[in-house]
C-alpha cells in the first residue's frame, strides 16, 4: 500500500514536461514512419528512434530527475534514503522511456515493420535499454557531481553526440564502451562484452550518484 501511494505521488509530482518531451518525440517518429513508404527506410527510422532517440531523451531527463524538485530541502529533511530517492526519480524516467519504446514497437509491429535484423525480442529491448540506462546514469551522475541539472544534461548530450559522430572509430577501437553497438552492429561478436560493460558502467555511475546524493548540502 505504501509503495502504491509512493508511486502515486512520484507520478503526481513528476514534471509534466518530462512527460510531454518523450511523448512529442514518440508522436514525431510515429508520423515519420507513417509518411515513409519504403520498408528499409521505415526500419531505419524505427531503429533510430529506439537506438538513438530513446537513450538521448532518457539521459537528458534523468539529469533533471533528482535535483529539479521544488521540495528538495523538505525531502532531505525526511528519513528517506538516497537510494530510495534515486530509484524513485531515475526509475520513473526509465519507466516512461520504456513505455514509449514498447508503444513504438507495438506500433511498428502493427505496420508490419520487421525489427528482427536487430535480433530477437529480448535483444531488441537491450538495443534501447542499455544505452538509455547508461545515458540516464551519466546524466544523473553529471548533474549530482556538478550540483547542476544542466551539467548532467550537457554531459549526456555531449557523449551521445560524440559517440554518434565517431561511431565508425568506436566500433573498431572501443567497441565495449560504444553505446550504439547493439543498434549499429547487432551481430558483432563483441556485443555481449559491450552489454556487460554498459550495464556495469551504468551501475558504477549510479553508485557514484548515490554517494553524491548522500551529501545533501551540496544541492541547497
Amino acid at each position, binding site marked *: *500500500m505504501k509503495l502504491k*501511494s509512493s508511486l502515486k*505521488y512520484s507520478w503526481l509530482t513528476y514534471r509534466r514536461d518530462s512527460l510531454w518531451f518523450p511523448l512529442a518525440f514518440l508522436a514525431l517518429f510515429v508520423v515519420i514512419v507513417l509518411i515513409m513508404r519504403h520498408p528499409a527506410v521505415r526500419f531505419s527510422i524505427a531503429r533510430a528512434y529506439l537506438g538513438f532517440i530513446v537513450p538521448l531523451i532518457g539521459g537528458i531527463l534523468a539529469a533533471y530527475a533528482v535535483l529539479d524538485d521544488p*521540495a528538495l530541502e*523538505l*525531502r532531505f529533511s*525526511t*528519513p528517506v534514503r538516497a537510494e530510495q530517492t534515486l530509484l524513485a526519480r531515475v526509475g520513473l524516467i526509465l519507466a516512461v522511456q520504456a513505455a514509449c519504446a514498447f508503444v513504438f514497437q507495438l506500433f511498428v509491429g502493427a505496420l508490419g515493420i520487421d525489427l528482427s535484423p536487430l535480433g530477437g525480442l529480448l535483444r531488441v529491448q537491450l538495443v534501447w535499454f542499455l544505452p538509455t540506462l547508461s545515458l540516464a546514469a551519466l546524466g544523473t551522475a553529471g548533474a549530482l557531481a556538478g550540483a547542476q541539472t544542466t551539467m548532467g544534461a550537457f554531459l549526456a548530450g555531449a557523449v551521445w553526440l560524440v559517440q554518434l559522430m565517431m561511431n565508425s572509430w568506436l566500433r573498431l577501437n572501443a567497441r565495449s564502451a560504444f553505446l550504439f553497438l547493439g543498434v549499429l552492429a547487432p551481430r558483432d561478436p563483441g556485443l555481449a562484452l559491450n552489454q556487460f560493460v554498459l550495464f556495469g558502467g551504468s551501475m558504477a555511475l549510479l553508485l557514484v550518484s548515490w554517494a553524491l546524493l*548522500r*551529501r545533501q548540502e551540496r544541492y541547497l
Partner: protein
Amino acid sequence: MIEDCAIGIEGLTKIYGRGSKAAQALRGVDLRIPSGMFGLLGPNGAGKTTLMRILAGIVNPSRGAVRVEGHDLTTERGKRGAKAILGYLPQELGMYPELTAAQFVDYMAILKGLDEPRQRERRVAEVLEMVALQDSAHRKIKGFSGGMKRRVGIAQALVNDPRVLIVDEPTAGLDPEERIRFRNLLVNLAADRTVILSTHIVEDIGQTCRDIAVLAKGRALFRGSPAELTNAAAGHVWTVMMDRLAEPEQGLTIVSMLHLSDGIQYRLVGPSAQAYPTAEPARPSLEDGYVWLMKSAGEAKTG
C-alpha cells in the same frame, strides 16, 4: 553535558568550500536547548539557516558535536534517527503546486515513514485542522496565499507528530494578522515539544520565547531570556526631539524615528548620549537590547 537537554550543541563549526574560497558559517557554537519554545535571533548571514539545516540533518557539521533528543547528528545513523522525530519548515519553502494541501501533507507523511493509510489519512486531517486549513484541504497549493502555504508547511512539519520542530524564518512575507496567528500556533505547539524558531524579526521572538540565543557572524553572542537581553540595554537607550539628525554622534544607533508636530523624536541606542543634552533616558525594549548587543559586539549597522 549535551546529552542532558533536548538539543545539545558543542563547539559547532561549519565551513563551506575549501582553500581560499572557504567561508566559515558557524564558529564554535555552544548551545543547550531545553524543550519548549526557543528563539534564535540574528541578522541575515549570521549562520541561523546553517544551524537550522544542521539540526535538521541536512548539512554536516565540519567540527563539533550536535545531539537532537540523543541522536548524534555527526553520524548517518544518528541523522536518520533525528529525522524520524523531527519536523522542519525551511526558510525557502518549496512545494508541488499541482498537489492539493491534503495530498502534499500525505506525501510528506509517506516520506516520513507513516505507512498505515488510515492512520495517515486521520493524521493529515488533524494537522490541516490544526493550521485551520481543513476547508482548503482539497484545493491545489498553486492557488494559495503566502500565509496559507506557510500553514501547509507547518502541517507537513507536524504530520509525524515530531518531538522537535524547527522553523526557519516562518513569518517572512506574512501579513500582520497571519504573523500573529502563526506565532500563536507555534506557542501552542511548544507546550509538548521543542520548537526552535529562527528569525531576524525581534518582535516574533519577544512575543513567543522564554529562552533565546543571538547569533552573529557564526558565533553565539547571547544566551538567556528576552528579559535579560532587554535589561542588557538599560542605561543605553534615549529619546531626543530634534529637527533633523543626519548622522548620530558617538556611535549611537537610531532605532526609530517618529515625526511629531514639534519635530522628530529619535530613539537612540549607544554607550552615551552626552552629545545631546536634551536626550532623556528611555526604558529599553527587546529590540533595543538586541541593537545594544550587536553594537557591543561590533556587529551593528550604522545609522
